């Protein structure tokens, strides 16, 4: 029995080496055991890391660090001289910096690393300009207006940038603007936390929807990075977790809380169906499963407490419920991993 098992495992490992990718460790082990020559070892390493790849890596590292240090130096320079600068000089300098970086982005080769970085810096400087404008003229505008205007001003650049980080900046600004605006809402019944959470979830959800609609198209290749999907879906799940928890534990007392809870439940359902059947996205399903396990556990303890169960009974059932829930979740995800052929 043991021999058979060993043989089966050896066969499986043997088959699995068919999917093994070349890496430094594998090459070192083969060279150490004399199974490949020194020349082959060197060739393999050169294939993994051609000489120019280290050059490119160092170039990017130096360029990013150098640019960041110079920009920080400029910021420190103005911070030191800020008091002695006239209003005209302050605006000229900031506007000049925006114009220079934006022009640099235009002149640099289209959608290159440099042009994307310059456009990003320019977008950040627009925010600095608006903050200084508000400080000097004491406009009395609400903070949300600053963020909304900032987002509006960088929108055209963002549309042209083809740069995920630039879009992330715009989305962050919109989220902050919306959250700040919510406090100013005249409709009292809406201006509650639940309404804000749903609005933020809708905003991020719509962006996620647009992303999914565009991904895969040649001109939107920059959206292919799967991290954008994880980030947006994760944000929607996190934002809707509290209303869903309120619904599940029976703490949704008002009609608004119940409505929002039902909406959150539907959104969780849509996310599951989308990332299980349309695009199989296992990390999102893992986040979804984690939220659901915690949700079921909390709703059980809340309900059991309402039913008058004692501490021992609640803890006993909760412990076995946790074991079962996480086991089922892991089993389900493992099945999907096997189907998708994902091996770490």
């Amino acid at each position: 029995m043991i021999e058979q098992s060993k043989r089966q495992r050896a066969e499986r490992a043997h088959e699995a080496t068919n999917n093994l990718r070349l890496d430094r460790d594998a090459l070192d082990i083969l060279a150490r055991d004399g199974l490949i020559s020194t020349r082959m070892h060197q060739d393999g390493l050169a294939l993994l890391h051609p000489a120019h790849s280290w050059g490119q890596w160092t170039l990017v590292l130096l360029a990013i660090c150098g640019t960041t240090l110079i920009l920080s130096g400029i910021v420190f320079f103005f911070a030191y001289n800020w008091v002695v600068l006239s209003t005209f000089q302050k605006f000229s300098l900031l506007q000049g910096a925006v114009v220079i970086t934006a022009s640099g982005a235009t002149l640099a080769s289209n959608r290159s690393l440099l042009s994307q970085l310059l456009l990003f810096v320019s977008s950040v400087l627009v925010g600095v300009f608006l903050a200084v404008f508000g400080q000097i003229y004491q406009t009395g505008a609400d903070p949300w207006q600053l963020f909304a205007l900032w987002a509006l001003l960088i929108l055209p650049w963002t549309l042209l940038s083809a740069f995920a980080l630039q879009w992330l900046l715009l989305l962050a600004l919109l989220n902050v603007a919306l959250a700040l605006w919510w406090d100013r809402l005249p409709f009292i019944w809406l201006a509650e936390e639940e309404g804000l959470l749903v609005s933020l979830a809708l905003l991020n959800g719509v962006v996620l929807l647009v992303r999914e609609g565009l991904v895969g198209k040649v001109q939107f290749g920059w959206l292919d990075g799967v991290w954008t999907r994880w980030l947006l879906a994760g944000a929607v799940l996190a934002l809707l977790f509290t209303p869903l928890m309120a619904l599940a534990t029976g703490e949704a007392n008002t009609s608004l809380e119940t409505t929002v809870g039902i909406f959150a439940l539907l959104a969780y359902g849509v996310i599951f169906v989308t990332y299980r059947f349309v695009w199989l996205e296992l990390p999102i399903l893992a986040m979804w499963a984690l939220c659901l396990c915690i949700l079921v556990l909390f709703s059980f303890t809340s309900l059991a407490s309402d039913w008058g169960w004692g501490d021992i009974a609640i803890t006993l059932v909760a412990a076995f419920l946790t074991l079962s829930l996480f086991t089922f979740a892991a089993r389900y995800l493992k099945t999907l991993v096997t189907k998708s052929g994902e091996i770490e």
Partner: protein
Amino acid sequence: MSDQSKRTASAPAFQWSDFFSPQEAPKLDLWLDEQERRGITLDRPAIKACLSTVQEARSEASPLYLRVLTAIGSIISAALLIYLLYLFGILHFSIVSEITNGFLFLALSAVLFPRGAQQDQVGLRHDFQLQISLTFLQMGKLLLVLGFGEFTYDQLGWQNGWGVSLTLAALMGVSFALFRLSFERLLAVLAFLLSVWVNLLFNPLNGDVRLLFSLWLLLHVIAVGWCLYKPVFQYRLSGLLDGLLLSLCFGVGIIAMEAEILSQGLLALPHDMQLGQFSNLILLGGLFVLLFWIAAPMNVSKKTLLGAVAGALIPALLSEPGILLALGLMILGYATHKAHQSILGIVFGLFFLSRYYYLLDMTLMAKSMTLILSGTALLAGAGLIVWFGLYRPVEEGSGHDA
């Protein structure tokens, strides 16, 4: 067409993601096929048998998100079961009860953990058995740490946390011996190493704290080097390297921020260690070992190697161990195709670089000039790479080496 010319023809443009990890490596089988087409005779069965060790270690590990999910589940259920035992009156928070129950649950965990033929099974029963085993393991570990910690503190009169460290070391040994799960091992390694850092800070026994702290740092660097030079052990002891790197980040973070910790009273450190220079030397040594590990098997020119060494010396001259470690992590992540190590290095580097300039004892004006000059120096370095064309793929037959 030679391999060299193929590389030249297929070298793609640099993408953002390439900074974290270079483009995906080719499949080993395809590479071996290509070597055979070039007339090289290979012992394919022997190669496959040799690599099955690596593959076995890798296929053991489920994707990270799955391991995290399982770990969270086992921690929650362990906490609930400990509370349940307490409610039943089976567990008392006394030394004897904690140690007895700790050993009991550790033994149960070891018995239930799927091994041999069981390990190959798939299905709900197997997963449930694994989840229960991990839950019992967390319970056993927690209770043993509590029990032995109290025992050494109260009964042996150690009056410090070294009892906890010793228990964690023993539990780490148990994890490596009995539980072939890389995430579990990573947590075990990390818990032990971090406990030693903390004990060295607050309870440095009778030794010179500076010497002990430096020695512990040196041991980390040696262990990381050992993992790199002995990849087979790295796979057999999966989780060790990542645990060492995370612990190194913690230790170097303490060393780098010692002055602030002391001045702002964040922690009541009993000693003024002033470890900056010691740790710089150790980390610089580690960085040289890493560069040598990367360059040794390749046909690297002296000029390139000298450039890399000079590049490593610059952060060392800044006397900022955090930046040195960040650079090492970024290089290691890129060399081993492990993006998580690169990301760790970037986060660490961003924090310590901004902290370095923020803390410079200068006027804002002088600081501004220093920033602009150092930024210009880095851009000049980038300019040299462009000037010598080191970022471009090697032309066929040019004889241009690395």
